[in-house]
């Protein structure tokens, strides 16, 4: 399958955009990044035209055709360029992978958000909920190296991207994921060693500063 032109409408700090970049790199694909400064209110015409429904990044433009929603995009990348595969081969294992993809999408980022958006008792509760979710994921991982089994797959991509904000949660909440979920932390380290991840993951301190700016912007200091 020829590569064609691949463009990502991107935001450096978005873990959802990160998923797409890691996926493209894993497949050995070259792409152009176009940074959207949407948080400052300046949405580009291209973004508004490509994603009129949600007006959000990431958007993948493949030969000019837009695909939106990070999980849909990563699945598209996998369907279009099958090698190396992001999903296992049996329908049952694929279903299990999709189940966890749905769980990851629904739970992790919001739970993390509750930590930096709150303080005092509410924050303690938010941290507790967050740890429960990570523990659940740790259980799902089991003894495997990756969520994809022996190979780095769909859920490894989705989840490692979300962990780019963990340092910020830990700093705001004064806790460490490693103290509660050592196997999960080991998995984070394992994934971070991959060039597809290390080349694109943002500096955790910069993410922290960004979230600090968000707190100020929303009057949550």
């Amino acid at each position, binding site marked *: 399958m020829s590569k064609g032109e691949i463009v990502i409408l991107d935001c450096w700090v978005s873990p959802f955009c990160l998923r797409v970049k890691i996926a493209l790199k894993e497949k050995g694909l070259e792409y152009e990044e176009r940074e959207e400064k949407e948080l400052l209110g300046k949405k580009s015409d291209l973004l508004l035209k490509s994603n*009129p429904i949600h007006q959000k990044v990431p958007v993948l433009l493949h030969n000019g055709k837009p695909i939106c929603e990070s999980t849909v995009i990563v*699945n598209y990348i996998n*369907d279009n360029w099958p090698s190396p595969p992001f999903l296992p081969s049996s329908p*049952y294992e694929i*279903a299990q992978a999709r*189940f966890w993809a*749905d*769980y990851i999408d629904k739970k992790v980022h919001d739970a993390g958000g509750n930590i930096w958006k709150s303080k005092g008792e509410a924050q303690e509760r938010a941290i507790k909920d967050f740890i429960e979710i990570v523990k659940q994921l740790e259980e799902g991982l089991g003894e495997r190296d990756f969520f994809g089994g022996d190979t780095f797959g769909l859920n490894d991509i989705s989840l490692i991207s979300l962990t780019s904000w963990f340092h910020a949660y830990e700093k705001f909440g004064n806790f460490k994921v490693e103290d509660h979920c050592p196997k999960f932390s080991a998995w984070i380290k394992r994934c971070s060693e991959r060039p597809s991840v290390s080349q694109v993951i943002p500096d955790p301190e910069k993410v922290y500063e960004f979230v600090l700016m968000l707190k100020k912007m929303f009057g949550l200091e």
Partner: protein
Amino acid sequence: MAEESKVTLYGYSPCPFGKRVEMALKLKGVPYEYVEEDLTNNSQMLLSLNPVHKKVPVLVHNGKPIAQSLVILEYIDETWKNGPQLLPKDPYKRAQVRFWASFVQQQLFESMLKEFKTKGETQEEASKELFEKLKLLEEGLKSFYFDSDRSIDTEHVGLLDLVFVSVFGSYHKVQEEVLSVKTIDPEKSPLIHSWLTALLDLPVVKETLPPVEKMVAHIKFFRQRFYLPQLNDP
């Protein structure tokens, strides 16, 4: 049939997510056993089959459970090759179907549920929200779904059709009766209205969706018993 290849679907009859799975199984000609789970009283079976969410539907095939209706639909499509293909082969078209299925499931259904769970001003806001989202769906589907050579018949039913008809099929009529709100207006949403009408005419849909009176009774019960008491009185 060997015990191992047996298919069992655990569902709850008012729940649209189980209905879409039933329709898919019927379209693919897969024999299955249906087990009704009373959601007001979580059974041990359900807790063991779906420990993460403790919800229906759950499909058990070859003794192994699969949860989350959209995941189950894709599993059914990948496992049984008879009947219509629920997802297109072309990666771009697949991405479109997945995007819109997620939109119907998360955005539209959530707004609809909000309408049932609230009253007064909050409910009016939820209705407005739902209407805006329906407009987006109507626009979005124009370009990729409703082309002239697409027919809605038993051979060509897809995942998005099943997701949509399971959410809107019974519920929109129920909304009209319980809330006196007309959600799918043929003048405001002509494409969606004709799409829904065509889908509701399919034998597999007619025989699977619960009758409107049953849904009305169920929603009224839930509103009285659970949703409204949770609201603060204005």
